[in-house]
């Protein structure tokens, strides 16, 4: 105990007269910690803001894309409707008649070679 007292006396004596610590160490530590928390809080707030804005943008983008998909689907179904196809065929003079049943060659599911190749009069085989 006596040794400690001497050490403390020496410490007091070694300090220059009139010079004091501006902020006590503990307070400094606490303030630094607080500032760190505040900065972290601000950073997280900023990140949250940025992410929420991004989410909102994406939500809007999703809604707009969904609308676009529906509109494209609508246009496609109009384009491929039988009525429109018939009209286009007529407009481009592509109107055709169905072949009569005796002009149709029907192939079985697993056709033997003689079904796939029609024999030419000359004896050669040509792809049908």
């Amino acid at each position, binding site marked *: 105990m006596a040794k400690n007292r001497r050490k403390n006396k020496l410490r007091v004596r070694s300090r220059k007269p009139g010079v004091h610590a501006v902020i006590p160490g503990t307070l400094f530590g606490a303030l630094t910690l607080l500032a760190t928390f505040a900065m972290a809080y601000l950073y997280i707030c900023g990140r949250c803001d940025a992410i929420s*804005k991004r*989410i909102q943008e994406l939500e809007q983008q999703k809604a707009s894309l969904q*609308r676009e998909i529906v*509109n494209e*689907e609508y246009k496609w*179904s109009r384009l491929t*409707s*039988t009525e429109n196809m018939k009209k286009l065929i007529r407009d481009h003079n592509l109107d055709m008649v169905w072949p009569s*049943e005796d002009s149709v060659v*029907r192939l079985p599911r697993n056709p033997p070679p003689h079904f796939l190749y029609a024999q030419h009069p000359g004896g050669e085989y040509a792809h049908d």
Partner: protein
Amino acid sequence: MRNIRGANTPMIERRSWRRMALLALVMTLIWGGLGARLFYLHLGDNAHRLQKAENNHRRSREILVGRGRILDRNDKVLALDLSTKHVVVDPEVVLQSGYSRFVTHQLARVLELDPAMVAAKVNRPGRRFEYVMRHVPMDLASEINSMGMLGVFFNDASNRNYPGGRLASHVVGFANHEGVGSAGIELRFDRELRGVPGFRMTEIDGRHREVYQRRTMDIQPQEGSDVILTIDQHVQYFVEVALDKVMAQHNAKGAWAIVQHVRSGDILAMASRPAYDPNEFNRFRDDDRLNRAIGFVYEPGSTFKVAVFAAAFNEGLIKPEQIVDCENGRWIHNGRPLRDFHPYGRLSIADALKKSSNIAAAKVALELGEARLYDYLRAFGVGSRTGVGLPGEEGGILNPRSRWTSLSISRIAMGHEVATTALQLVNMQSAIGNQGYLMKPRIVKQVLNTRGDVILDVKEEVLARPIRADTARLMCRLLARITETGGTGVRAQVPGYTVAGKTGTAQKPTRGGYSDDDNISSFMGLIPAEDPQLSIIVVVDEPQPERTGGRVAAPAFREIAEQVVRYLDIPPVPAEVAQEFQSIFVERPM
């Protein structure tokens, strides 16, 4: 000097002090007042103020969802919710900009509107809001927006759209302006199509922008489900074109047709005339919106004989080659005459069916007896709804036996005193083509949610088996003779195929009897007869001047069948099958 200063200084200091005191007092009062107010606002009775402040920045709203789509069997869209824009002008801004003529011209050009009408809306000083056109497609709205015209803006909107217009309108139905299904599939599957709206509780900032972090509740909406039909858009088109043609050719009051897949009972097409455009449903009469294929009950006439003959064959009471006396076209039964359209003497049962003799049918029914006839008709589904799942389906009329008169059996045999819908008849015919199995007609295949999960899967269902397979096959053979030379349905022949069918020409009932001029003409047939794949019925209401089913409905059947077998790639049966089919009944010279 010193005295003067000395005399003045205390006075000045005193004044300065007073001023300072006064200022301090004023400041104290101000700050004290503000403090008191602050104290009161925070700690006093402030509940209603808090509520008001919260209401100013809190927003809660329902997130509405669009209705689901209605698709055909190949996923072609028949109905969908389309995003649109309302084009709006602010006349005051447009007029102030000095470009009112330009704006009028451009809007009229892009929206294909009458320029005078647009000008009338734009030239309204003092007005701040005028709709130019509602539900404008997004493409057109974008085009207008790209012009950057001052005072022209857009409101988001959505409307139910039917890309096919009148195509399958009676099946698809329509949703009204509030988005509530009001007819057809739209009505039947309203709950599934409508989905569940979401809910969001959030806060907004001073610029009315949502503060995302303040979303306290966010319940996502459940989009409406998609309903997939068994209808094939192309088959439907063939049928509708044929009906339009028959309506125009025969000045008919109405016409309707159904194409059914024999094995599964799937309805590939169901059309009715007059028709309506569901995009403008309120411009049409109720009568136009009636789906006659399921909602029009009529006396079927000779097409009904199919059930009577099938029942008698199934009971083994008659044979095709058995002779029946057709009484030269006039037969008195229970004191009342029964007539044939053409007089015949002695005919085989097969020929009596081919010639559609009423007298022969009545004699066959008498042979069968009331009890058995009634049971068979019930087993074929006469007098009860098929359960196809469309609103407005009628069950037809088959009186209980207790209400039959002594004449009833002979009249029912020729398709009078009994009333059916076209769907009941085509389904009955399908049973004959399907080895006697009566299937439940199916028009909805599946209901899928937005993730593609199956919510409802409508399975094929056998309702009954009124006749045996051998009877069904015999009936197919005998019905095929009707479209052969000498039969009433020659005009239903499809080149390359054998058609089994039956014509029907029924007089329409009037007060106290039957009309001499107004008929319901029909033809129903199976194709190919040897191995039936499709069952088709065409009914024409009050055709003029031709009135028989063979002349009016049979050609329409042919037109439909010819295109559908090719489109669905249904080949004619192999020669050996056709030969075996012909051998079921061989006509012998009498």
